[in-house]
């Protein structure tokens, strides 16, 4: 009797083949649907739509600008950073690298420094020369928008909450000052 029971259990625990055909049928239908709706190249855009707190701070700053930050981009000499505050103008030039490319690391460092000194300023005015390639301008806008170091934050006053909050945005409001020039 014992021996018979053992045999029965042994028979039940034997391997069995899983029927994968229905699973495969579902996948065959799902894959073409996802292939059609997938975006392999994600196109984004640069604009001034920002989190509400930063947006409010920009609007407040627009009414009464405390300081202005301008970047003059020149293909031969580099980027001239002009900070104007209370009638005083401070100019610093970030030269080109030995290979002739822009020094983005130094630019970011300088912009973080300016932002720490002027946390209420969100606008940066770009003044590129005509021969500057578009991709270089986009890179400069990227450097000005956010701090690369994720531990670097800047204080912003949230009027709704009535307290200071932190943001990693530096100068997200980009204006091309020379567009309307002749």
């Amino acid at each position, binding site marked *: 009797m014992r021996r018979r029971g053992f045999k029965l259990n042994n028979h039940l625990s034997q391997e069995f083949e899983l029927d*994968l*055909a229905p*699973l*495969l049928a579902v*996948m*065959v239908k*799902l*894959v073409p649907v*996802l*292939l059609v*709706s*997938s*975006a*392999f*190249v*994600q*196109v*984004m*855009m*640069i*604009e001034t*739509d920002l989190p509400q707190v930063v947006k409010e701070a920009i609007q407040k700053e627009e009414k009464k600008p405390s300081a202005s930050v301008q970047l003059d981009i020149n293909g031969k000499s580099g980027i001239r950073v002009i900070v104007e505050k209370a009638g005083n103008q401070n100019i610093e030039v970030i030269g080109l690298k030995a290979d002739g490319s822009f020094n983005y690391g130094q630019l970011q460092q300088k912009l973080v420094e300016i932002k720490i000194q002027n946390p209420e300023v969100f606008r940066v005015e770009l003044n*590129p*020369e*005509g*021969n*500057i*390639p*578009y*991709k270089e*301008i*986009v*890179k400069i*806008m*990227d450097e000005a*928008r*956010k701090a690369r170091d994720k531990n670097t934050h800047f204080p912003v006053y949230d009027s709704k909450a009535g307290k200071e909050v932190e943001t990693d945005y530096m100068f997200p409001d980009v204006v*091309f000052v*020379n*567009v*309307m020039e*002749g």
Partner: protein
Amino acid sequence: MRRSRFKLKAQNSTFALNITSMTDMFTIMLVFLLQTYSTSDMQVIPEKDINLPVSNIEITPPKTMSVSLSRKELKLDGRTIASLDDGDFSKLDIDSHDMNFIKPLFNELSKLEKAETTVGAKEGNILMQADSSLSYQVIRKVMYTASMAGFPKLKMATVAGE
């Protein structure tokens, strides 16, 4: 002898297909496709001859009309409206009194600005897809003309990346 041959053939006619590896492959594909699946309200298809600049911005474009600028031509919503010669506009398309004014672009945008059905016209929004190798002076002409035609909020299309 004949009979045994027939039997051998009959045995080979059906076989069990091993679909485990195929299921594995489909599972990997499914995970990859679910990752790249896009739910944004507007799918921007980059033009063939345009290399968009790479940016770390994470904002998806809104529904609006688009201007695409390659090294060869300027298109508005897929229609060619001006041609470029070696990365700059031909003199015929530029106003003789204003070197930044692109006449055909202004004419087309003015028509669209007046039309009530144009998406983004009220807000003055326009999306620009421009080749990354173009110089700022060419981009500036488009920005200038668009703002003159009533589209001052120019949005620059970029490819997501670092």
